[in-house]
């Protein structure tokens, strides 16, 4: 029955008439699903078949407005239907549906050509927002924690909700251009999850490649993304990997001046990005 419920729909969003092995669907489904005086066993099961696809496709459609804009509606729908066939949900919650889509896009390039890299970047960015939205926050590291422990012994970590991304395309700028009523801030760009646009703006051109380092984070209940420099990305990554503060500063490289590092660090402390390592 699971196979019948999750099989792709046929023309007109109806259950396919032929089963995988060439038998009539009526024969296969009719062997377990009963007719009533108004509907055949197939028609009755078709209700579930349609609901499965409407539910899962709707969920991905709502969660991935940026990917829709990159690919256009037709290619997007074909991609996510193929994705759900090849990689059906392994989680109890629809929230997790896009979790394996980036890898799927990269492994099946034909489905999104010629925009594969941009599409994969956009999914990585949108999935990071989903994870960040309800990711964990631990008690924020305070200046007292810093003052109490020598830097080389301080076990610091990044907040679990914070996501770091390396992308080939500036999808943050692109996503901002797609959003109506976007708020722009000097330090970061706010994304109000409640005002996510459901229809991509047609006039926004796809971005050209540009190496992009991003942090997706949550602050006072709202999602934000913040562009990083390579050096600051390296420094944050080192902290996430469990390096000490001096090691993380060293990871930033010689181009990161002491003034810059201090500026970044102050800003990150202010945003509450640090916690103590468990």
């Amino acid at each position: 029955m699971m196979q019948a419920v999750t099989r792709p729909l046929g023309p007109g969003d109806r259950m396919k008439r032929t089963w995988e092995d060439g038998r009539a669907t009526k024969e296969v489904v009719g062997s377990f699903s009963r007719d009533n005086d108004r509907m055949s066993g197939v028609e009755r099961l078709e209700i579930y078949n349609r609901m499965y696809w409407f539910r899962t496709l709707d969920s991905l459609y709502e969660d991935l407005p940026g990917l829709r804009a990159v690919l256009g509606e037709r290619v997007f729908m074909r991609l996510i239907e193929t994705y759900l066939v090849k990689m059906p949900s392994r989680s109890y919650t629809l929230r997790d549906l896009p979790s394996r889509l980036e890898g799927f896009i990269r492994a099946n390039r034909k489905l999104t050509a010629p925009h594969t890299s941009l599409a994969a970047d956009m999914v990585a960015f949108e999935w990071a927002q989903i994870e960040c939205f309800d990711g964990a926050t631990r008690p924020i590291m305070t200046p007292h924690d810093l003052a109490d422990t020598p830097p080389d012994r301080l076990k610091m970590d990044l907040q679990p909700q914070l996501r770091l991304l390396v992308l080939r395309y500036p999808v943050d700028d692109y996503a901002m251009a797609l959003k109506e009523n976007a708020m722009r801030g000097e330090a970061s760009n706010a994304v109000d999850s409640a005002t996510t646009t459901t229809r991509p703006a047609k006039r926004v051109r796809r971005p050209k490649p540009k190496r992009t380092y991003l942090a997706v984070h949550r602050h006072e209940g709202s999602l934000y993304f913040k562009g990083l420099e390579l050096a600051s990305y390296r420094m944050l990554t080192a902290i996430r990997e469990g390096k000490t503060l001096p090691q993380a500063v060293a990871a930033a490289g010689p181009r990161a001046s002491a003034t810059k590092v201090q500026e970044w660090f102050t800003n990150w402390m202010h945003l509450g990005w640090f916690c103590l390592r468990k």
Partner: protein
Amino acid sequence: MPANEFNGFHDYGIGLGLRVPHYNHILEQKPVCDWFEIISESFMVDGGRPLEVLDEILEQYRVVQHGVSLYFGSADKPDREHLKRLKALVKRTNTPWLSDHLCWGSVDGTYSHDLLPMPYTFAAAKRTAEKIKQVRDFLEVPICVENVSSYAAFHQSEMTEWEFLSEVVERADCGILLDVNNIYVSSQNHDFDPYDYLNEVPSHRVGQMHIAGHTKFEKYILDTHDHPVLDPVWKLYNHATKLCGVTATLLEWDDKIPSFDEVHHEALKANEFIDGAKKAQQSKTAKARA
């Protein structure tokens, strides 16, 4: 039986489903509401806005957990990690009972995200009851199982849906979340008398009821939760309250959700029937004493 062991001996009155469009209204206006039912899965997360809202709600209101993914009828064993997350939420909400559906929806860890109907066989009832017991033992909270609305039926079935429900809850010694709208929807889709269903379920096990709206199509009825409750469902509810006594009742409105006040107003219509049931109960008691 207003309060029984299956709802933790709590007489909760009339509740509403906690839904995102109402968050701001509830948090800012703090309207009077007996209790809120939450979808457990929406709050089985590590942090962020969902848990912040939940904690604020818990400061003001009583909350009961209702799930959509335990899939008591699936052959898969209960997922321990899933149960751990659920138990953490149970501790957070202090829910007096927890409900989920009498259905299946996953095979070998692949999920349909739907509440699929079961074949009503003795073997399925036995296996399902075992799973309910395992979940209850792990969560340490009373469990109520909800009858689902369904559109398909199986050749293998050996009994009616209400016989199956009774078989499962008796074997598991658990409660019932009696969804009156689902009984009506299924009665129309499977051509049975919904009053037969109500009359046959073990009423002493009913710990909670659901009411909701549905949508009628040419050949079947769909459980859409996007309308006010329709008359035939209110009539069934009236009958159910007489059989089961005054029971914690929740209005489900999950799509095309109107304002909080409109949903609450619709839910409070249940009071008319609850008052009737109370009077019937009092007169029954008085007669028994006399």
